[in-house]
């Protein structure tokens, strides 16, 4: 630790820290443009000048590392003069069009000029004219005249993300920020440059000319679109969310978002969103629909008893809503049939759940089935940050297709579909064959994976790394068993897993009282098919889109007399529903979300729910009234724990290791692999239309050629009499013999086929005349 004095206050900071960061820790603001802690020092803008005693000239606080006994002054005549000069220079060619600039009112150039700048400039020549409002891509505009050339945007894309799509062009005063070969910047993370740009040079197109800091409601919230749960600031104006920005949390995250989260906020105002209650297939007044459902509930409970009602939660609900529904179901109705709808079967015990700090400290990372760039994008950035710090970080993948990319190279062990658990176990057995935990896995069969050297490498990383972090997509449920065995084998060495599946708040729904294991839902559906359930309440759950066995759901929908739906969008099979009630979305109410780290994060609403949409408690209070029971949904429950704070309480790792089912090597037919991807997760967005892939299915070049498909085409995928017609694209990351289709897209419910061996045939393209 280094001790130094800044403006008369003493502080000890780690060696190598820059003066600017040390000052920030004391709450002293040093104005900066080019410096960002995540990007490292550059020293391009000179805005951060401070006076350091015994230094002959002013020093840049962002490039000068702290030294023992240093005395720094961030105020004073010399510093003021330096800042004035720098600002006068920056403003020489600045257009000063604040009245039409989107950053007006929240611009660091305005703020610093107001605070430190000269009252007027002396430069009288005409200002240089450059491109105004030119597109960087569909979502980001650049006004080159306003740029202060801090290079944050360029460095972020080039160094941090590793996708060099922005660059500086020209020389001297003619220098501008532009895109490579003037092609749109297609990175998933390009939107972050809007937050990074300290001035109004990079602007979000959807927010262009929309609002000002004083006529908006800007609230801290969490992105609900994937389980990363990135912290956001949501901007509401006139009842609509118009902007989502990243929100840095000190010492935890930098506030990056992916474009899915940054520009996908418009699902709440999607034309498909239902904002009126539906009763027997017709629009109905909210009060009448709620009352009618209450009457049905009363009849069903009266006639068939409380256990004839089942509650299935899912979707975007908050933890509080889950808890309220749980209390209503158990206390008011008195049923024990509760379940949660998820897209994948895997479950991760809390005891194994890691946090993002486990990525920052990992020396080996294993991706099981999941490609973070597509599934949990901001985790890709976290992994890359770790990989940049430690280039010998071991990164393995175990999946039916190649994981990783140039910016994050991963050694993938390509397995057959459904064999991830087996291959992981094989790798484990290669290093510690005699360990009792490995014996309990009872590895049997031939996975067809016999590359001994690679298996041994993976095994070494699994067993011998000091800090092992795994990411798991949950598609292959038996991986849970291997993970428990792995943790047992590793003993005291840290083994942590991050689950990358949805719904984004599944841990919160679990914390609220709903069982997260899919067996609970399967049991309810089987009972319902057998006529034991009279009323099925689907709270945000879209079973036909989510549940792995669509056949069973179909039967249930035909059997159960009262199916009550609730959600943002009409689910598949809504014809079978007696009533469908519109729900309030996460940006429209207060509550908490629990992300893949098992961390509780709060949402603050910035708009009101539209139309008849309302939070869960409104319905529950009304129904309790129909049942003549007293019930107050608003209790003082919250998911925070007294001891573990914003993380869920730690639990022991389960001791029992279930044996794996034997595998056999498939006979070389095509296999269908699935997974949850963030762009294709079924939550609509008009804004992101151009980013959503046209073709959902992916095939290897070899298979595409074999099937006679050109770059794109349609195929028919079939198994057990179920079939799907889907557009395919050729993907280099695919392995011959596998076809990949993401889960959860309403137009392509691949869950009705299920993973495994399928028939794939080319469909003749139909040319419309």
């Amino acid at each position, binding site marked *: 630790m280094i001790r130094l004095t800044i403006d008369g206050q003493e502080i000890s900071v780690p060696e190598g820290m820059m003066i600017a960061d040390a000052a920030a820790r004391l709450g002293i603001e040093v104005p900066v443009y080019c410096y960002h802690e995540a990007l490292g020092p550059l020293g391009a803008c000179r805005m951060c000048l401070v006076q350091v005693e015994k230094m002959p000239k002013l020093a840049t606080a962002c490039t000068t590392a702290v030294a023992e006994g240093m005395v720094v002054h961030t105020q004073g005549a010399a510093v003021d003069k330096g800042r004035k000069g720098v600002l006068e220079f920056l403003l020489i060619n600045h257009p000063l069009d604040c009245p*039409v600039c989107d950053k007006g009112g929240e611009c660091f150039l305005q703020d610093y000029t107001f605070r430190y700048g000269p009252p007027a400039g002396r430069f009288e020549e005409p200002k240089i004219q450059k491109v105004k409002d030119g597109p960087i891509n569909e979502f980001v505009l650049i006004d080159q005249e306003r740029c202060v050339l801090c290079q944050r945007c360029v460095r972020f894309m080039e160094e941090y993300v590793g996708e060099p799509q922005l660059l500086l062009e020209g020389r001297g005063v003619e220098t501008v920020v532009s895109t490579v070969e003037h092609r749109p910047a297609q990175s998933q993370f390009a939107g972050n440059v809007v937050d990074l740009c300290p001035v109004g040079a990079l602007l979000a197109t959807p927010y*262009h000319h929309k*609002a000002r800091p004083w*006529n908006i409601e800007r609230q801290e919230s969490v992105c609900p679109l994937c389980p990363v749960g990135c912290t956001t600031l949501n901007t509401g104006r006139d009842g609509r969310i118009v902007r989502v920005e990243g929100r840095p949390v000190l010492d935890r995250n930098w506030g990056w978002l992916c474009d899915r989260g940054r520009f996908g906020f418009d699902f709440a105002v999607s034309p498909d969103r239902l904002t009126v209650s539906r009763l027997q297939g017709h629009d109905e007044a909210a009060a009448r629909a709620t009352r009618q459902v209450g009457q049905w509930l009363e009849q069903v409970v009266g006639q068939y008893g409380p256990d004839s009602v089942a509650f299935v939660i899912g979707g975007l609900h908050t933890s509080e809503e889950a808890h309220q529904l749980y209390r209503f179901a158990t206390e008011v109705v008195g049923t024990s049939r509760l379940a949660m709808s998820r897209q994948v079967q895997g479950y991760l015990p809390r005891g194994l759940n890691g946090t993002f700090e486990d990525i920052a400290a990992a020396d080996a990372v294993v991706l099981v089935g999941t490609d973070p760039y597509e599934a949990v994008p901001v985790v890709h950035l976290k992994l890359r940050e770790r990989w940049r710090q430690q280039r010998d970080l071991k990164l393995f993948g175990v999946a039916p297709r190649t994981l990783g990319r140039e910016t994050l190279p991963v050694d993938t062990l390509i397995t057959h579909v459904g064999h991830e658990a087996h291959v992981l176990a094989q790798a484990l057995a290669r290093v510690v064959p005699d360990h009792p935990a490995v014996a309990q896995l009872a590895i049997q069969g031939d996975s067809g994976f016999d590359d001994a050297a690679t298996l041994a490498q993976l095994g070494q990383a699994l067993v011998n790394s000091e800090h092992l972090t795994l990411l798991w997509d949950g598609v292959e449920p038996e991986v849970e068993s291997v993970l428990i065995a792995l943790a047992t084998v590793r003993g005291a060495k840290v083994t942590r897993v991050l689950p990358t599946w949805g719904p984004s708040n599944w841990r919160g729904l679990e914390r609220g009282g709903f069982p997260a294991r899919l067996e609970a839902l399967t049991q309810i559906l089987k009972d319902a098919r057998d006529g034991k359930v009279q009323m099925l309440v689907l709270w945000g759950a879209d079973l036909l889109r989510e549940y792995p066995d669509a056949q069973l759901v179909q039967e249930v929908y035909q059997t159960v007399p009262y199916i009550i739906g609730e959600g943002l969008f009409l689910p598949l099979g809504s014809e079978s529903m007696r009533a469908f009630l519109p729900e309030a979305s996460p940006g429209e109410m207060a509550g908490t979300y629990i992300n893949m780290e098992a961390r509780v994060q709060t949402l603050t609403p910035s708009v009101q729910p539209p139309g008849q949409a309302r939070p869960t408690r409104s319905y529950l209070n009304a129904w309790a009234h129909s049942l003549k029971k007293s019930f107050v949904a608003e209790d003082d429950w919250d998911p925070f724990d007294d001891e573990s704070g914003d993380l869920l309480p730690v639990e022991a790792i389960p001791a029992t290791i279930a044996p794996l089912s034997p595998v056999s090597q498939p006979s070389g037919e095509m296999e269908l692999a699935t997974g949850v991807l963030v762009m294709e997760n079924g939550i609509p967005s008009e804004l992101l239309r151009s980013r959503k892939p046209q073709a959902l299915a992916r095939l290897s070049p070899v298979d595409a050629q074999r099937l006679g498909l050109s770059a794109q085409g349609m195929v028919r995928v079939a198994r057990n009499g179920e079939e799907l017609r889907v557009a395919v694209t050729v993907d280099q990351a695919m392995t011959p013999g596998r076809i990949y289709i993401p889960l959860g897209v309403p137009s392509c419910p691949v869950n009705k086929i299920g993973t495994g061996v399928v028939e794939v045939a080319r469909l003749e393209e139909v040319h419309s005349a």
Partner: protein
Amino acid sequence: MLDGIKAIAKGMGTTFKALGEPRDTYPYPEKRREYSPRFRGKHMLAKDEEGHELCVGCGLCEAVCPAHAIRVVAAEAPGDKPVSWTNRYSVDYEVDLIRCIFCGMCEEACPTNAVRLTPFNELAAYDRETMIADKDELLRPAIRK
């Protein structure tokens, strides 16, 4: 008795004297008072010589208004400058004349000299809604008769 007559005569004297004096009041609405051009009455939104709206929807008037009487909704101006002189304009601009305290701060804050307070002060209506001046109304400032 005599005192009474005296008092009446004095009173009537004052009355007749006042009858001949110039009046302090106006027979409104037949005759109206002249105001200084700086008088702060109802707002207007100005246009330039080519008929482009000056307001760029920056929202500064909204921010500065102590009575929160102004609402501005900005947007990208239609291309080829049919309405605005630049690429941004206000699609919606409202002044709530009941809230407004006619302080003139908006006028002072406006970077384009678009919003101006005119001497028009005949603000009366049967309901509150009519007292909210929208953009169309403000672009065609009322003239005092």
